[in-house]
């Protein structure tokens, strides 16, 4: 599969009263065409800021201070607002967690669906209306024609999220960024939406960045997984390796602290402490304060990203121990 998105050494900072706080610390990753990359982590790990950086939608006090984001070999950093507007909703699309705050409450569903089509595809109103009906059918909204004249508040949460998806997919984007799109939904509705995103992805052949904190959702939808902690990528791997052979102690902790519905006897593991703040300067590995395996080197020296297999990387000193043939300490 060919490369769609390449993020290299991305650094995003926020200007605050306490100075410039780094929310994303020099991270690199890529997404292939037709691939789903899940970004997982807890609140404050930088996963949403990463996706907003790609979209060029950072809040006014946030700025990208280094690195590059290349979509089909075109650097998105440094593009003017007009140039980004040409891309957003067209080649790049995003769906958000709370469709009610992302949809405009005083405009009809039809108006909001036609907008990307008339702007990016130069369609007439009539053509756009026809295309909107097809889009609503595609995302499984019944009575699509009548729905065009309704307002967001008249729809249920699941239906609103379907409308958001229809809008995002109107121009058949090459990259879809989905930021916790199912978190606010009930499980039965979540299952419907996950299936829908999966189906549409293979239809359109787009790459998807799916941001979530739910490991169950990750197992369901991801091809590859990127685990973030305190602004850094700590582990990247294909989805099977993450669940069957996790390497980073944080990934392990994350997996073991989720109660399993199918297993009563499970002993829940706890990651001690809580996520550090953006302005906490931690020397060495940013996880060492909470890590059960932390050694002297972890306190002083930041670990590089070690290769476990060609598709699996872990940013942890334990890998060095493993690779130099010393006893395996993390089983």
């Amino acid at each position: 599969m060919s490369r769609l998105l390449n993020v290299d050494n991305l650094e995003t900072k926020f200007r605050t009263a306490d100075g410039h706080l780094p929310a994303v610390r020099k991270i690199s990753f890529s997404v292939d065409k037709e691939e789903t990359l899940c970004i997982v982590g807890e609140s404050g790990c930088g996963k949403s800021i990463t996706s907003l950086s790609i979209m060029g939608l950072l809040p006014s006090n946030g700025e990208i201070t280094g690195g590059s984001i290349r979509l089909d070999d075109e650097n998105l950093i440094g593009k003017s607002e007009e140039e980004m507007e040409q891309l957003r909703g067209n080649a790049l699309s995003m769906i958000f967690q709370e469709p009610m705050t992302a949809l405009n409450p005083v405009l009809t569903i039809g108006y909001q669906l036609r907008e990307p089509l008339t702007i990016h595809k130069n369609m007439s109103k009539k053509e756009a209306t026809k295309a909107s009906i097809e889009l609503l059918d595609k995302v499984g909204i019944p009575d699509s024609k009548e729905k065009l004249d309704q307002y967001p508040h008249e729809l249920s949460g699941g239906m609103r999220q379907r409308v958001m998806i229809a809008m995002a997919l109107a121009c058949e984007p090459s990259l879809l960024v989905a930021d916790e799109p199912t978190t606010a939904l009930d499980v039965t509705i979540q299952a419907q939406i996950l299936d829908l995103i999966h189906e549409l992805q293979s239809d359109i052949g787009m790459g998807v960045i799916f941001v979530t904190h739910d490991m169950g959702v990750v197992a369901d939808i991801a091809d590859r997984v990127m685990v973030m902690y305190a602004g850094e990528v700590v582990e990247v791997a294909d989805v099977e390796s993450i669940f069957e052979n996790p390497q980073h102690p944080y990934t392990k902790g994350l997996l073991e602290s989720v109660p399993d519905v199918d297993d009563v006897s499970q002993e829940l593991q706890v990651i001690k402490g809580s996520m550090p703040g953006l302005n906490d300067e931690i020397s060495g590995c940013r996880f060492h304060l909470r890590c059960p395996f932390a050694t002297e080197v972890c306190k002083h020296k930041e670990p590089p990203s070690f290769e476990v297999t060609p598709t699996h990387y872990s940013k942890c000193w334990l890998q060095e121990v493993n690779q130099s043939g010393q006893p395996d300490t993390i089983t």
Partner: protein
Amino acid sequence: MGNQTQLLEVKNVKKHFPVKGGIFQRPKSFVKAVNGVDLTVFEGETLGIVGESGCGKSTLGRVLIGLEKLTEGTIYFNEESIGDLPERKLKKYKKNLQMIFQDPFASLNPRQKIGDALEEVFIIHSELNKSERKSQVQSLLKEVGLKEEHYDRYPREFSGGQRQRVGIARALALNPSLIVCDEAVSALDVSVQAQVMKLLKSLQNKYHLTYLFISHDLGVVRYMSDRVLVMYLGAQVELGDSQQIYNNPLHPYTRALLSAIPRSKPKQKRERIKLKGDLPSASDYPTGCPFHTRCPIAQDYCAEVIPEWREIEENHFVACHEV
């Protein structure tokens, strides 16, 4: 289960909220948030209540500890009827019935120190003097895994997990016998969620507490609960031991709910039971079985006859015609 003491007995409890309209603001219709629940809660157990948003699980919790007035039905606490007591008489029971909320920050005064907020409980409900109250609060803080120095801090200085610990300390202050945990760990990150669940379990063992554990997260409920009640649109659809509900779900809604949870096992595609459509609005309550509009095995008569609440096997109750 037979030799356990009953703590709470709930009979045919209903809570309907009026929807007002017209110039005289007369009730036009009713939202049937809780529509006939029969339940016994035993001392020392954790009863999980699950269901999707709008199923009435939170309203049921609030009704049971007297935060909402009953529309119909009776509640017995230690064999005394408390459902129809006036506010004044309810006060002495409120000590025994406590609640932990989803967002403790919303229930804390941002300008009040944590220590002062917790002390208020003792000012209202006890006759301790100032220094006794302070030492009580400090031992409470330690009990929930906080430190004495947290006494003088403000809510904003606490992380989400620490705030929930404050919420637990407040609920624990008066040695209650029953605590309703309403989505108590839902807003927390998984690593912190596990810490708080473990804390709740150890406190339960230590003080012989009874929990009503309300959550939409079926994994969390399984970890916490001895028995589980599944609700749908204000009605109880299935009740049983955790084992029975999770290993042998009988009601089609419970089955669909369990099959819809994404499992942490990649590439192991499970057959999902797909439910059509959305939850009907509780103000436009379906006739017959409340679930018939979305049920994959619904028959004609399901739309007309309300299914009976039947005991299928020991301690395992279901409301469905087709089981």
